[in-house]
């Protein structure tokens, strides 16, 4: 098992004929992901290295039975692309696009909630999702992830930061620990999928035995996750929060990573997670070491 995606997931790439879409879409296919089609308006009928391109998501879904979409189009076009996938009945949409205005994100999120409750959006501005050995949608380099072992124990990863997601995969691989699924939820203010959505799935996934969570300063998503963990997560967890030394009022790269009005500090988030029974590392390596201890005890 895995969460959100599996070996049978059929993926279309919106923007397959563009630079990012082509590069990552083909890498995902090389990894073994079932990439069945591309979508670029006006380029229907073309092929990209054997992958058929359609004018619309609806046509691509009708022809291939795709159930997931990888949105790799520029910020101006991404909101419409996400909603087009939802309208075509695609159940899982991964959007890696960075730089979508917050007003557009808020509108897209609330439109999905109201009109397309059957569609889950991951991102925007996220590295994507990988179930090692089964499916990789997004920009993660597949070779840094160790596939899960049949008898476990395996770890699920959920992270707000791209490179720290890789760091976590790397730490676990160094220690020989398999990963069930690794989800990068992205650093934007209105993520389609949040920590709690992933924690709920990991808790229910029989292949996941422990969970690493990587957060960062800004907002209150980690505090809300801590409340959820205390009440609903029985699996052992370790965590790391980036930005202990970040000064207040400065955006640290991600649109969402800002400490303002004394809220959203790393210390507050670490305290909340520790109080919920999560073992909190002071740096990514320590979070990996804590996870190795947890796994050794399972």
């Amino acid at each position: 098992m895995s969460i959100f995606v599996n070996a049978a997931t059929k993926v279309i790439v919106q923007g397959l004929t563009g630079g990012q879409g082509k590069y990552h879409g083909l890498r995902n296919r090389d990894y073994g992901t079932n990439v069945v089609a591309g979508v670029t308006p006006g380029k229907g009928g073309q092929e990209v290295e054997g992958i058929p391109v359609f004018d619309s998501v609806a046509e691509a879904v009708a022809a291939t039975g795709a159930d997931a979409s990888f949105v790799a189009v520029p910020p101006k076009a991404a909101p419409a692309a996400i909603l087009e996938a939802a309208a075509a009945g695609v159940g899982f949409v991964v959007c890696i696009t960075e730089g979508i205005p917050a007003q557009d994100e808020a509108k897209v999120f609330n439109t999905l909630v109201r009109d397309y409750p059957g569609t889950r959006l991951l991102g925007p501005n996220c590295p994507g999702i990988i179930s090692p050995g089964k499916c990789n949608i997004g920009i993660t380099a597949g070779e840094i992830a160790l596939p899960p072992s049949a008898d476990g124990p395996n770890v699920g990863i959920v992270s707000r930061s791209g490179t720290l997601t890789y760091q976590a995969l790397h730490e676990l691989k160094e220690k020989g620990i398999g990963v069930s699924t690794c989800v990068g939820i992205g650093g934007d203010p209105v993520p389609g999928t949040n920590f709690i959505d992933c924690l709920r799935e990991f808790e229910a996934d029989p292949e996941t035995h422990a969970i690493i969570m990587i957060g960062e300063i800004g907002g209150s998503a980690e505090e809300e996750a801590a409340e959820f963990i205390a009440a609903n997560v029985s699996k052992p967890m370790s965590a790391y929060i980036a930005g202990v030394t970040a000064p207040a009022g400065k955006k640290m790269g991600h649109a969402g990573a800002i400490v303002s009005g004394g809220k959203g500090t790393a210390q507050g988030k670490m305290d909340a997670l520790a109080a919920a029974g999560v073992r909190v590392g002071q740096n990514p390596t320590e979070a990996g070491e804590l996870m190795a201890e947890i796994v050794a005890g399972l």
Partner: protein
Amino acid sequence: MDLFEYQGKQYFARYDIPVSAGDVALTVDEAVSAAEAAGYPVVVKAQVQVGGRGKAGGIKLAADADEVRHHAGNILGMDIKGHLVERLWVEHASDIDEEYYASFTLDRAAKKHLLMLSAQGGVEIEAVAESDPEAIVKLHIDPVDGLDLATARQAATDAKLPERALDGAADILVKLYRCFTEGDCDLAEINPLILKPTGEVHALDAKVSLDSNAVFRHPEWEAYAATEVLDDREQLAKQNGLQYIGLEGSVGIIANGAGLAMSTLDVVNQVGGTAANFLDIGGGANADVMAAALEVINFDQDVRSIFINIFGGITRGEEVAKGIVEALGRVELRAPIVIRLDGTNAEEGRRILAEAGIPESRLRSEPTMLDAARAAVALAGQN
């Protein structure tokens, strides 16, 4: 991007939000001209992006040209909490019956827009939230629905604004919401929102923060970029398209990815050092990007060592290594480099660095983030 008050008021005016007649002034003479145009009495206001201007003596009432000269002369060049006053806003003084507070932001937890409205304005809203939370009406707005006049009027009623202010307040709220959404603000705040004796409701201050992701659909924002408050390091970084934030420490930081960059600052701090900056070079770090990053760091006189922390995902180790070698050929660095290179093709990258013939006193590799942080901090202390 945060706007100055005068820019915020000009932005409000685009959405028909009533503001006082006034103009910006860079000199005492300009202040007098602005005052003559606005009509006496006027208020002379320091333009700085920090709270507490009034207490610091940065806001003064003036009845005639002599008083404007006196106050403008005092306020220009004033230092308010580390912010130098270079501009004034001079506007016609308003008669005030009551002061309210109104703002729109995005509530990230609720994923909805949030209106905050209070009959207690003119003071820090955080203070009201502490002392009398009931006095702030909070209303979530679904971005798909937007805000209509009836809902805005109800919010004003709930906030216990007087009957005679309700229509004016509702009208401004709807306009401010349009400014917030169509104007792509992260924050649109009026404090105080005033009720005049004549019954008009009016924005006496403007606090606007713009979402820089939306710059592609706002050509009018170009004017604001020119007045953005950046130090020399930040200016140089911006010219090179780097995500840079200047800090006070002695270890220069270069990392790929915002999360890893933040994490690098943390680790440096944990081993007893202080970071000189936050710098995210993003994915696909080629020689040009690396050279630009090293140049920005080199510009900072306080930097004693440079910690390059790269985890290759898409970014390949050998590309990073080639970039550093090439950059070292272009930039004469004052401080030594400690690099931690991991992930995709890291071994190849380390080999390229080792074979480049750079003396170890100028560049050394460490296997982990922690080791590299310790080495960089030690070097920063030695120099």
